[in-house]
């Protein structure tokens, strides 16, 4: 059991970090183990990289501080070697980092090169996407990463109750669609043809950060979009290709889309107005965002909806 949420503003930027935090915290009962965000700030000519150098529960101990510092220096060194001009590197936690760079090269090569540094995992890459995830509930993670002040146009979030895998960052959502810029997914459900699709996508050169079926959806969609399909068309294809019960939300640099499987087995509530669209597993999350009584509905089976910024 997990909870997912998404919000998109069609009339400019807003406090999407604080909004998603309120929505996710209202669904803490669906998953207090880890919380994740994929938020989109204003795009500029810099590439934003979010990466970690250690799992939170393995980031302390003898010599760890020095090791993290050494590996961080190695990441910066590799960025320079691959031709990126580093603008900023900051960290809120000591193990999770945010870097902005000027880089016009291949993002896949960049991600692979960085992840060759011991303990390094690239959480997101893009011109505006930032994936932040950590252990604990939404308020804890938001406070840790100062998400209350994050302004952007749209974003998604996930609260996780660990049922089949570790309580760690690798198993926490959202998932970035490696190696495609600015694509991320949160998902509530189970894919029953996970291994089949993982093998297919690996044969196309993709690698996966986790054993989680949700990561398949992100890479699957991005693969289709890289071939020129729209997000909406790619999502419609996914309803035929992916087996199981699922509701997922996918975001790109300027879109947010939702899809429900043919059984409509997993919950999602939708609120739509001219300036704002919000989706969440439970209505309580919509109420946390929009305080007044509003009209909401459950999307039906095989429904795919996409909104643009």
């Amino acid at each position, binding site marked *: 059991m997990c909870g997912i949420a998404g919000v998109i503003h069609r009339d400019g930027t807003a406090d999407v970090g604080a909004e998603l935090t309120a929505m996710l915290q209202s669904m803490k009962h669906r998953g*207090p183990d880890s919380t994740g965000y994929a938020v989109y700030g204003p795009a500029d000519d810099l590439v934003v990289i979010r990466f970690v150098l250690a799992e939170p529960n393995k980031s302390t101990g003898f010599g760890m501080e020095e090791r993290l510092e050494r590996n961080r220096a190695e990441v910066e060194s590799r960025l320079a070697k691959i031709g990126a001009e580093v603008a900023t590197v900051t960290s809120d936690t000591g193990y999770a980092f945010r870097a902005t760079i000027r880089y016009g090269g291949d993002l896949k090569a960049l991600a692979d090169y960085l992840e060759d540094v011991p303990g390094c995992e690239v959480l997101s890459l893009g011109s505006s996407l930032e994936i932040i995830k950590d252990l604990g509930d939404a308020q804890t993670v938001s406070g840790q990463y100062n998400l209350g002040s994050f302004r952007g146009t749209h974003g998604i979030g996930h609260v996780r109750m660990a049922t089949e895998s570790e309580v760690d960052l690798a198993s926490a959502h959202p998932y970035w669609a490696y190696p495609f810029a600015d694509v991320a997914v949160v998902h509530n459900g189970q894919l029953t043809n996970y291994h089949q699709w993982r093998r297919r996508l690996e044969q196309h050169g993709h690698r996966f950060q986790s054993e989680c079926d949700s990561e398949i959806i992100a890479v699957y969609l991005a693969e289709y979009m890289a071939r020129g399909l729209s997000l909406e068309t790619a999502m419609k294809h996914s309803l035929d290709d992916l087996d199981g019960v699922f509701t997922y939300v996918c975001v790109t640099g300027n879109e947010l889309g939702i899809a429900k499987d043919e059984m*409509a087995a997993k919950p999602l*509530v939708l609120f739509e107005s001219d300036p704002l669209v919000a989706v969440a597993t439970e209505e*309580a999350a919509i*109420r946390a965002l929009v305080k007044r009584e509003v009209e*909401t509905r*459950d999307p*039906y089976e095989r429904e795919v909806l996409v909104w643009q910024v």
Partner: protein
Amino acid sequence: MPGSGSRSGVSYDARGLVEPHADMPTNIEVDGGRARFDAADLTIRQINMALRKLIYNDGVTDVTVLNPSSKHSLAVGILKRCRIHFEGSPGWFACGLIDGPEVTINGRVGWSVAENMMSGVVTIERSAGSLTGAAIRGGDLIVKGDVGARTGIDQKGGTIIVTGDVGINTGFMMQRGRQIICGNAGMNLGDSMYDGAIYVAGKVRSLGVDCVPGEWDDADTELIERKFRIHGLGDPPEFQKFVCGKQLHNYDALEPSERKLVIH
């Protein structure tokens, strides 16, 4: 204080999600047999504590709950004739297992409203989520809007009326009772149903296994007109009737003890 109240002495910490203690709300206004309180800042347990105290202990027969704020499991297990009004939208599992109350909800509800209801009336002024009226045994459940998937799954009695559309697998494995759908129905209507009747005024995307068009008779007309009249729903539209084809299951309708006497 996780685990307190456990008679076995075993401590159980549901990751900080339990609410072992709750204080009775202090914002309840009682006026004779009527009461009202604002639930905006109350927990689920506090709201249900207040409802039970008012209805079972204080002789109140008419309670208004303001701002339920989509909280789950409100007004569950009330087994007494009374009136409960929700000014706003409860969350999931509202009014489950009730036997007798007349509930009005002027907002929408989440999944599984009136699950296992035994008798009474639940009227929702707006839309409802999936599993609406799951396994209801009796009473009337009226949704004045659209509902999600699997409405009346495992329905064992009672009447579900939806003025809007319904989603996939409506009436899945229903065993008795009636569903009156004024809008369209999604795929697999009445899939694997055992008995009962489903009336649909709009389009049916597809029928489920062993669900077939039924023969209309005067009792159907009388039922629909009566339900529309009682619940103030205006003039009923024209409906198609769907019933079980009786090809999928064993339909002798005998109790196990009776079957021993008849079937050799």
